[in-house]
């Protein structure tokens, strides 16, 4: 089977098919698996030590689910399925937040079988809006929002400046990475870490870390690997 998206990507024209989106989801699942310990460790410091465990449980359920869902081409439906699966398997804060993220993405691209770079930007926009509506977090609250918003903004800015999709994805992931790092000094105001007050400063937020993995997975799957850090 010829990978259409690969061909298109090589040619510089951008279009993501159902399979591409699936590859991204698998890549995110693999990142979560690989970083399960670290996510849990970060959550132990300022939360309850389950973020890696929860996300891993959710993403393995997602893989089972999408494997079972045979022939399908509607990307919106795929993303909604991912979201619903996360909602019903993750629990905690991560479940509704990542569930909402994927479900809102799915709504934004409902019925589409191909996504342009603008579609992806719109999906990410919807994702962030959904997560904020669900969790009421503002930038600086030390949550996943602090990785997602820089990631969304960098993507939009890069595309507006005429960057290639690959470049835009890389800038998006790098901005999310920076946003994630910037959560370290913050005092948490939302989520479980907020109970610690000042004691939450000095630790990187686990949710921002997993959100960076999400955007990094997109950049690696559809664009170029980042520089080794």
């Amino acid at each position, binding site marked *: 089977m010829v990978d259409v998206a690969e061909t298109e990507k090589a040619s510089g024209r951008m279009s993501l098919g159902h399979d591409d989106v699936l590859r991204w989801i698998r890549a995110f699942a693999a990142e979560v698996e690989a970083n399960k310990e670290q996510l*849990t460790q970060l959550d*132990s*410091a*300022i*939360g*309850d*030590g*389950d973020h890696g*465990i*929860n996300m891993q*449980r959710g993403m393995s359920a997602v893989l089972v689910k999408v494997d079972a869902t045979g022939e399908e081409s509607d990307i919106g439906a795929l993303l909604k399925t991912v979201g619903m699966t996360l*909602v*019903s*398997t*993750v*629990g*905690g*804060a*991560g*479940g*509704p*937040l990542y569930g909402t993220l994927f479900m809102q993405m799915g709504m934004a691209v409902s019925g589409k079988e191909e996504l342009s770079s603008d579609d992806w930007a719109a999906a990410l926009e919807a994702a962030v809006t959904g997560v904020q509506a*669900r*969790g009421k977090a503002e930038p600086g609250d030390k949550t996943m929002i602090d990785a997602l918003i820089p990631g969304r903004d960098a993507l939009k800015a890069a595309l507006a400046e005429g960057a290639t999709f690959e470049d835009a994805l890389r800038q998006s992931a790098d901005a999310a990475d920076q946003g994630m790092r910037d959560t370290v000094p913050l005092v*948490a*105001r*939302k*989520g*479980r870490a*907020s*109970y*610690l*007050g000042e*004691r939450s400063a000095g630790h990187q937020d686990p949710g921002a870390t997993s959100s960076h993995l999400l955007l990094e997975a997109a950049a690696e799957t559809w664009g170029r690997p980042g520089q080794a850090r």
Partner: protein
Amino acid sequence: MKKLINKPDDVVTEALQGLAAAHADLVRVQFNPNVIVRADAPVQGKVGLVSGGGSGHEPMHGGFVGLGMLDAACPGEVFTSPTPDQMLDATKAVNGGAGVLHIVKNYTGDVMNFEMAADLAGGENIEVEAVVIDDDVAVQDSLYTAGRRGVGTTVLAEKICGAAAEEGRSLAEVAELCRKVNANGRSMGMALTSCIVPAAGKPTFELGDDEMEIGIGIHGEPGRERVKLAPAGEIVERLTAPIVEDLPFEQGDQVLAFVNGMGGTPLIELYLVYNDLNRFLGERGITITRNLVGPYITSLEMAGCSITLLRLDDELTRLWDAPVKTAGLRWAT
């Protein structure tokens, strides 16, 4: 990790199977999604009470399902709030036509999952109200944060609202009562040792041999401060003074005093703590007229305790005394 378990991933399922086998007279347990339902649910015409939260806090909530308390409980993974589909199934199973109250501990995850469940239940034309319990004075309360955690008062709210529902009060009335309990209850906890989440396999935090954590939550979340170990009398003061000041509880108040074990602390120590608490309150003219001493809202095998005070009036006292028949609390039936 020293635990009486088989595989870390199976802890919740197997414990639920045990609960189901042990208390078939009181509850039915449904798996995937996991829900513990009162054996005779739905009780027609009665407001249904649903609570839930992460597992690892037993007997809360599953041990409180039965006559005079909860109609259903949704157990999440260990320390992880359950999912909306569990809550929706629970809500449907206990809806006897008078609506369903969700008693939610104030954790972002619990709140969001219950919100989603309420939306889904609304879609199925079930009237749902939710009351969020946020009684932990160890956490700074603020509009700009997630606010206080829900801890010990949850147990008292479940008992008292369960009695009110049993009396046939309306959903609005039971919800109002639940808010009243929450408004009059305050808690604070401490830990001598950490707990170990089975799937994590190691202690959530490390405490020195001469240290304790004051203001801890029920998930091994770090507390307000880490200090040197102290005698029980001092610990009681450190926990109770902020509780008393916060409401504030005042001279002449009658209270229900709840000394809760965190899971790894034996009863002999809890009674000793109760003795110090009784003295502390007595010196301030606050009278304990009801009490509860034991491990009721635990944090796996964590050693430590929490103290909850609930200001009582005649109504709350009467409802507290009303019959209850659950695996975890049982009297007067």
